[in-house]
C-alpha cells in the first residue's frame, strides 16, 4: 500500500495544478515496444532466458506513457511497462515504472519528484525504448550493474548554456527495491533476494552538439527487505574427522545489517565524421561492509557507422569481479572423510558449491557484431551475433548441474523489431 501513496499524492498535486489551468492542459500519449527473439548454441540459459531453444522473454518489452503539460513549468508523466517479471523467471510484470511531477521554474533548472529513473548510463532513461538506440541489446556487462533503475525520490537537472555546448548537472536521491537473483546449479532453481537501495548521486554531462561526455558518482545503502543481515565474509573451518577445510556462515560478529555501494561511472558518445561514432562507458562498483558483495569493474565500447537507414556496429564489453578469489576458494573447497560419515562429507561439499552459486561473481567478455535498419523514423529492425567468453565464472549463466559457468563460449543470435509512437 505504501507505494500507492506516491501515486495518490501525485494525482492530488496534478488535480490542484489542473484546477489552476484546466483549460491549458496538453496531453501527449506515446508508446514504445520491442519484440525481440534471441537464441544461443548452449542448452543452459544465459541472462535468465537465452538458450538453444530460443526465447522472446529476454528482450521483449512494451510501454505506454502519458505526459500532461499544465503550463510551460509544470508537467506530470506516467509510464506503464509490460516486461518479463523482475522477481521471477516466469510470467510478465505490468508495472507503473514512472509516475513523476516535473517543475521547470527556469530554462536551466528541472526538478522532478515521484517514481523516476536514475540518470546513470548514457541510455539509462530510454533503455526500454529500443527505437532510440542502435544496438540490439545494451551491453549487459554494464547495464546490469543497477538491477533496478526505477526509484522513488527526487532529481534535478541544472544546465549551463555555452552557445553550441551545454553542461548539465544531474542529481538524484531516493530508494528502490532491487531483486537480486542467484542460481543454484545443483538444484537448478533460481532464488531471489529482495534488496532495498537508498541511492543518491551526481552526474556531470558535457553536450557538444551530438556528442556527450559524462562522469558520475553514486552511493547506495543496501539492506535486505527480509530483515536478515549480510555476511561480511565466510568462516573457514576445520573439523575433527574431516580432511580439509571448508567454509560456513559467520557468527553474529561476521554479519552486518547493511552495506554501502559507492559507484562511479564515465561515459562518452562521440562522432568522428563520415557517420562514424564511438560510444563507451565504464562503471566501477565497490562494496563497503562486506567482502563477498558484487565488487565489479565493467566497460564497453561500441563503434558504429551511420550509413543512412543502415547502421552496422561492433561492441566489445567486459565485466570482472574484484573478489573472484573468494569465489574460487569456496567453489574449490572439497573435504574428505577421516572418520566422519560420508553423508556429512557429501552435504559439506554440496554446500560449498551452493554457497559459491550464491555469490554473484562475474568474469566475462563479449564481442557483438550487428546492424540496425531504420524501417522508418519511428521503428527499427536489428540483428546481432554475440560471442560471450567466460573466465572463472559468470552469474549471467545458469550453470548446468555438476558443471560450472567458467570457461564457456556462448554464441547468441538476436533479432528484434522496435517501434515507438
Amino acid at each position, binding site marked *: 500500500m505504501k507505494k500507492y501513496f506516491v501515486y495518490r499524492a501525485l494525482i492530488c498535486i496534478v488535480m490542484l495544478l489542473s484546477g489552476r489551468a484546466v483549460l491549458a492542459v496538453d496531453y501527449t500519449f506515446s508508446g514504445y515496444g520491442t519484440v525481440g527473439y534471441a537464441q544461443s548454441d548452449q542448452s543452459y540459459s544465459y541472462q535468465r532466458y537465452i538458450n538453444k531453444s530460443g526465447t522472446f522473454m529476454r528482450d521483449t518489452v512494451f510501454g505506454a506513457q502519458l505526459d500532461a503539460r499544465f503550463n510551460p513549468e509544470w508537467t506530470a508523466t506516467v509510464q506503464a511497462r509490460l516486461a518479463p517479471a523482475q522477481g521471477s523467471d516466469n510470467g510478465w510484470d505490468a508495472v507503473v515504472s514512472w509516475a513523476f511531477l516535473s517543475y521547470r521554474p527556469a530554462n536551466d533548472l528541472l526538478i522532478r519528484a515521484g517514481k523516476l529513473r536514475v540518470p546513470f548510463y548514457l541510455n539509462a532513461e530510454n533503455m*526500454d525504448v529500443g527505437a532510440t538506440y542502435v544496438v540490439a541489446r545494451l551491453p549487459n556487462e554494464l547495464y546490469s550493474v543497477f538491477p533496478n533503475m526505477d526509484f522513488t525520490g527526487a532529481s534535478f537537472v541544472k544546465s549551463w548554456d555555452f552557445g553550441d555546448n551545454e553542461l548539465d548537472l544531474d542529481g538524484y536521491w531516493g530508494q528502490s527495491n532491487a531483486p537480486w537473483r542467484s542460481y543454484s546449479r545443483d538444484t537448478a532453481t533460481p532464488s531471489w533476494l529482495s534488496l532495498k537501495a537508498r541511492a543518491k548521486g551526481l552526474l556531470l554531462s558535457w553536450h557538444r552538439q551530438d556528442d556527450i561526455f559524462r562522469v558520475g558518482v553514486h552511493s547506495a545503502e543496501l539492506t535486505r527487505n527480509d530483515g536478515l543481515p549480510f555476511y561480511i565474509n565466510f568462516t573457514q573451518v576445520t573439523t575433527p574427522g574431516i580432511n580439509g577445510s571448508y567454509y560456513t556462515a559467520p557468527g553474529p560478529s561476521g554479519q552486518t545489517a547493511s552495506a554501502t555501494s559507492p559507484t562511479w561511472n564515465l561515459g562518452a558518445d562521440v562522432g568522428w565524421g563520415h557517420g562514424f561514432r564511438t560510444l563507451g562507458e565504464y562503471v566501477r562498483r565497490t562494496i563497503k561492509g562486506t567482502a563477498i558483495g558484487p565488487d565489479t569493474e565493467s566497460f564497453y565500447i561500441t563503434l558504429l557507422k551511420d550509413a543512412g537507414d543502415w547502421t552496422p556496429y561492433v561492441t566489445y564489453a567486459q565485466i570482472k569481479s574484484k573478489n573472484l578469489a573468494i569465489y574460487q576458494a569456496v567453489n574449490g573447497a572439497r573435504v574428505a572423510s577421516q572418520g566422519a560419515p560420508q553423508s556429512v562429507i557429501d552435504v559439506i561439499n554440496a554446500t560449498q558449491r551452493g554457497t559459491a552459486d550464491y555469490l554473484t561473481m562475474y568474469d566475462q567478455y563479449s564481442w557483438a557484431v550487428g546492424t540496425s535498419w531504420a524501417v522508418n523514423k519511428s521503428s527499427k529492425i536489428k540483428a546481432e551475433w554475440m560471442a560471450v567468453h567466460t573466465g572463472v565464472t559468470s552469474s549471467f549463466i545458469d550453470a548446468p548441474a555438476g558443471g560450472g559457468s567458467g570457461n564457456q563460449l556462448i554464441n547468441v543470435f538476436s533479432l528484434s523489431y522496435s517501434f515507438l509512437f
Partner: protein
Amino acid sequence: MINIKLLPAYLFILAVSNAIAGGVVVIGHADVGKLDAATVQKIFTGKLIQVEGIEVTAVNLKPGPLRDRFLQTFLNQTEDKYTIYWAKRLFVGKGAPPLELSNTADVIKFVRSTPGAIGYVDEADVLPEVHVIVR
C-alpha cells in the same frame, strides 16, 4: 537515374518550386519580441521555455514540406532526426514535443490568441496583422 537531356527541365522545375515555396517566417504572439535563429532553435528543441521573462509555447505544423523547410532552415535537422530527438527527450522524461497543428491558418489563429506562442508560416502567408519575430 537523371536523364541528362531533361536537366534544363529539372532545373526549371526546381527554380519554380523554390519560388512558390518562398521562405519560412517565424511568427509569435504580440507579447514576444524579436528573436534570433539560435533562440528559435532552442525553443523548438525544448531547451528554452522562457525568453526575457515570457513563457513561450512552440507550435509545429504536422509533418510536411513547410515543416521540413523550417527544420532545415532554423534547426539544421531532418524530419527523421527531429522526431527521434523528441522521442528520446520524451522517453527520458524531459518534456513532450511542441503541439502540432494541421495547417497554417490554425497556426496563425493559435499564435495570435495564445500569449507566448511561437510558430512558423510560409512567407507568402504573412498577413499585416501577423507578428513576425524572425524573417
